[in-house]
């Protein structure tokens, strides 16, 4: 297994509140890694460090390293836009843009264009209509939504059901072909059927992508993840193979949490 993300001594402060305390962890490529823990334990704060979404919070300070492909994404000379293109994120509440289904998926490719090398010069150009159509179809198929929406791509993204909206958001993330996809409690606003579809999708996605999912559902972590990290009070208590974490946790705290005696 190669390492996709290596976080080292990661600390996050909101003003003086120490929200993430010295987290060091490796996330493997082409695996589903689950982050579990009680509310307020810093699990969302942690994955928001991986694509630098915490930059958007004015009083937030991040110290430490997040190495992706040998570069620290917090380095000053790293372009945050580039980081977020390579590391996608799906949020807790489905948040399609108030645009058509097609435009939702075409949004990011349209913005970024295609970078090509023509006669030794790097050039950026717009996608042709055919290329965009292909991206939209491929992304929607990959997100297991194509069959349901192929006849109404011009309808608004908001007209879909909650589960479909979340898959649309996944398709939107896939449209620019990131290496890593972060899921921040993607099923907490969905019903069980929609949840199971998303879970199947996540397991399928790990063939091509590295998946990190924050979840408050231990069952979900147990069902879909290869490795699990348990967070408590801003610290990473334990990380290991999912089977080991749920069957033979090494730490007392982890056992208390997964057996429901705490949290």
């Amino acid at each position, binding site marked *: 297994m190669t390492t996709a993300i290596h976080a080292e001594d990661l600390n996050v402060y909101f003003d003086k509140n120490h929200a993430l305390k010295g987290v060091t962890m490796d996330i493997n490529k082409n695996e589903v890694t689950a982050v579990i823990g009680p509310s307020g334990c810093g699990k969302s704060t942690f994955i928001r460090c991986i694509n630098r979404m915490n930059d958007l919070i004015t009083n937030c300070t991040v110290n430490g390293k997040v190495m992706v492909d040998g570069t620290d994404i917090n380095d000053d000379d790293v372009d945050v836009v580039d980081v*977020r293109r390579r590391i996608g994120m799906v949020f807790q509440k489905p948040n399609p*843009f*108030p645009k058509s289904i097609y435009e939702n998926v075409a949004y990011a490719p349209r913005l970024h264009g295609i970078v090509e090398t023509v006669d030794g010069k790097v050039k950026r150009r717009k996608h042709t209509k055919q290329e965009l159509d292909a991206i939209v179809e491929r992304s929607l198929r990959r997100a297991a939504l194509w069959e349901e929406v192929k006849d109404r791509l011009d309808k608004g993204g908001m007209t879909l059901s909650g589960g479909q909206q979340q898959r649309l958001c996944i398709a939107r*993330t896939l449209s620019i072909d990131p290496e890593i996809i972060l899921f921040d409690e993607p099923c907490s606003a969905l019903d069980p059927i929609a949840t199971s579809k998303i879970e199947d999708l996540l397991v399928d996605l790990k063939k091509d992508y590295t998946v990190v999912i924050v979840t408050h559902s231990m069952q979900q972590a147990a069902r879909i993840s290869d490795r699990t990290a348990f967070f408590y009070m801003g610290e990473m208590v334990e990380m290991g193979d999912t089977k080991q974490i749920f069957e033979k946790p090494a730490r007392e705290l982890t056992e208390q949490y997964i057996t429901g005696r705490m949290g």
Partner: protein
Amino acid sequence: MALKLPVRNKQGRGRRRNEHVPSRERAIRYVLMAATWISVLALAAVFTELLLGAFPAFTSINIVDFFTGTVWNPSHPLYPLYGVLPLFVATLMVAFAAALIAIPIGLGCTIYLAELASPRVKAIFKPAIEILAGIPSVIFGFFALVILSEWIAMVFDPVNKLNALNGAIMLAVMMIPIMVTVAEDAINAVPNNLREASLALGATRWETVRHVVLPSALSGIVAAIVLAFGRAVGETMTVLMATGNSTLLSFDFLRSVQTMTAAIAIDFGEVASGSDHYHVLFLVGLMLFVITFVINFLADWVVRRFREEYK
């Protein structure tokens, strides 16, 4: 033991009425209702007065001449001329020019304050702009008369020192705070998770504003522009003091003009009650009313069309 609730109005079908509302609640309800009726009736009374006042003008003067006449000279002792075009043109010129200045500045200011400014900057600038909205229009008029006209005279060498441009710039300054206040509310109402979605896809701040925030806030922004434009069309004291009040038809921004509002305000002081001139002034007022009504209607239509696109 079953709890027995008092039941009234047994056969009551349709709307259910609560018979147990305390009298204090009921009194409050009537007071609030009365307040609503008073506002509506006041508006109706103003409109009726306007109609009644304007009505005789339809028979006493040639109404076609009123709308097409290019000379406004109501005070001529023998041959008064009531062509509204000079006033109408002046109103549109001043209001549109003001909008042309105010919209880009107002929008830029709104986007900066709502999306980019740090909380510290915002805490200073937002109240400052709101104070600007509360300054009485006569103060702006005074400023235009004394200071702004001098600046314009230095730069443009105008035909008249008090001119349409002077009024337009001053009006623009007055439009900006209204626009900023209303449009900023619209931008703030855009859910934050849409911004996050866009930024997480590698969009820049500006791309996010341009492609996600502004389209989502469009109806509110259009409303802000219309509100500001409505104020520009209806504003009286500032333009009266700033534009010089020449009633000659002119399309030159560096010449003196008189807007419809200024004509009403100036002429009404000296007009004989019940005269032709008196009724014509009401007609001009009615026209102003219709203009603002049409603007609001158009804006509503625009907003509706765009909203459908974003559904």
